[in-house]
């Protein structure tokens, strides 16, 4: 029953997205053109990737506020690397970005695991530290398009089978997560650790290690996104993706991932990210003053969350026979 409720929560969100898209289409038919929708998806790809990473972290009752800073730092490092060694092939850069991101995730994870510091404190701290490090290594300088090699910039935009590589990467990550979360012991451990950390200890799951693994995954994805972001926008500087961590968390929450841990799904995170991405992309298109943008996305978050919560409200235990049939 709960399973079907979760399913229906996602259906509702998908429905809301559909209604939103149709409403936009009435004012601006071009928005629903496949090419534009593909554009919106491509634009939302970084948010999707990060939201999935954030999802596993939130599932384990943690939170990762350092994703955006991690992204920016990795982006800056690979951009500087590219500047110093323009010949470095893209696969090497990708691998480096993922490793570097994972390393930063590991730092978070170890602090949470080994020193038992509350996750929000750890990542609040590392968030500012990682940002600061960007400033220190770059001296605050921007790295601009003309300083990056063409291969470096081209990779995320390369079109394969009608979609840019960036979109394909997001799709690959989504598929990877469906397998990871549903079919691997680690994936199930995320749910167990978040659902009942106390009980997880009794089943031999190492809570700290599992949380650390979630951080490494989130970090690795942030690193990956760091390269993609910098290459796509062809610029790297201290403040890129500033404040993006809150958007990532918002996407997860809209997607029905319980901030209290243990509840959530890949589909939810994906839809949550798409929802925000569509709102963000649609506003300028349908010509709403940019000054309205913030208020509208804020209200959307509140409504979505209130909606999720009311549809998920527990009605107490069912003891009476007649109520059982009604329920």
């Amino acid at each position, binding site marked *: 029953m709960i399973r079907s409720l979760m399913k229906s929560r996602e259906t509702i969100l998908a429905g809301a997205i559909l209604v939103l898209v149709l409403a936009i289409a009435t004012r601006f038919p071009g928005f629903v053109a496949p090419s534009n929708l593909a554009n919106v998806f491509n634009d939302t790809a970084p948010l999707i990737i990060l939201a999935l990473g954030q999802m596993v972290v939130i599932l384990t009752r943690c939170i990762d506020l350092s994703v955006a800073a991690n992204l920016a730092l990795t982006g800056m490092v690979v951009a500087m690397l590219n500047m110093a060694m323009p010949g470095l092939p893209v696969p090497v850069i990708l691998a480096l970005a993922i490793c570097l991101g994972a390393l930063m995730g590991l730092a978070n994870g170890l*602090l949470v695991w080994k*020193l*038992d*510091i*509350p996750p*929000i*404190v*750890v990542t*609040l*701290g*590392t*968030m*500012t*530290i990682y*940002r*600061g*490090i960007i*400033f*220190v290594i770059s001296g*605050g300088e921007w790295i601009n398009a003309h300083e990056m090699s063409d291969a470096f910039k081209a990779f995320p935009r390369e079109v394969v089978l009608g979609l840019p590589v960036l979109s394909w990467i997001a799709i690959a990550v989504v598929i990877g997560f469906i397998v990871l979360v549903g079919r691997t012991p680690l994936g199930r451990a995320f749910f167990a650790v978040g659902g009942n950390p106390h009980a997880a200890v009794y089943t031999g799951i190492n809570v700290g290690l599992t949380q650390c693994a979630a951080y490494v995954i989130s970090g690795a994805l942030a690193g990956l996104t760091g390269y993609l972001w910098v290459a796509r926008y062809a610029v790297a500087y*201290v403040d890129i993706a500033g*404040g993006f961590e*809150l958007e990532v*968390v*918002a996407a997860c*929450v809209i997607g029905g991932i319980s*901030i*209290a841990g243990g509840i959530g799904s890949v589909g939810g995170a994906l839809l949550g990210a798409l929802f925000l991405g569509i709102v963000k992309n649609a506003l300028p298109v349908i010509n709403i*003053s940019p*000054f*309205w*943008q*913030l*208020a*509208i*996305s*804020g*209200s959307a*978050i*509140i409504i979505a*969350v*209130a909606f999720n*919560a*009311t549809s998920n*409200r527990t009605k107490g235990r069912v003891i009476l026979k007649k109520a059982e049939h009604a329920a």
Partner: protein
Amino acid sequence: MSLATPDTGAQGRQIPDRLKSPLQRFLVSWELLLLVVAVAVFTLNSFASPYFLDPWNLSDATFNFTEKATIAFAMGLLIISGEIDLSVASIIALSSTAMGFAVQMGADTPVLVLIGLGTGLLCGAFNGFLVTGFGLPSIVVTIGTMSLFRGISYIVLGDKAYTGYPSDFAFFGQGYVWWVISFEFVLFALLAIVFAVILHKTNFGRAVYVVGNNPVGALFSGIRVPRVKFALFLLTGLMSGVAAICLTSRLGATRPSIAFGWELEIVTMVVLGGVNILGGSGSIPGVVIAAFVMGMVTFGFGLLNVPGIVMSIFIGLLLIAVIALPRIAHRVLAKRKA
């Protein structure tokens, strides 16, 4: 034998009231550790820059934290109760916008103050209503209202600014009560005392701790949990209103981007002050010392013209180190013993 005078017969064991004296507790407390850090920062600063030990400069330095600390006190209580409010900086923006709007309508200082406080209260009530009325997690609700409140300021103001605040309004953010003692600092000190008394000496403060430690148990003990939480959101809103008045007065202008990013600095201040981010424990003296530490670090680095972002590395490290070090020390000591 009646219930009022329980049987004091031999059946019960005598249990001492306290295992450790308050002094013993203080000696292993977070506050002491912070105090040591604060003294260290102060000493380092006075060696690092010849300009540090100057009464006017020290007075100027207090502006770096007084407004944030005003909110941090209320945020401290809120976090102890197990909730959080990330919309505080946006409440400042909305509150300031409302005051600016009122100035255009010709309002004078007392009215402005009322409007500033009132807007803060209203925003706090909105947060409180969403959290307690719908049972939503506050971290999510306030991420939403954070966008909403500032968004409204942007809708009202767009690319414009409100200026032209009455000259006596400048007192709140720029005035001095006596010599180098600014109004803001006096307000900070008074609020520190008021909040310390509320949290540590009243039934309400006890309820805050109880709710933070075990909300279900609190309900079963007759505490009106939603009311307590609602009151705390109101209080946080009100304090954001107070901060809005001080900041607006100090800047003499309102733009929708005012106080951008303060929420995380305030949360950092509270956590550095030893408040458990998961709720249930923390103290006001801790937050006060943390405010001083953060203010002095910022100012000290500023005197050396170190960019703000490098300071933030230091604050980030401090945040983690101050929590990590006692744990590491504890572990090392435990190993030594074994």
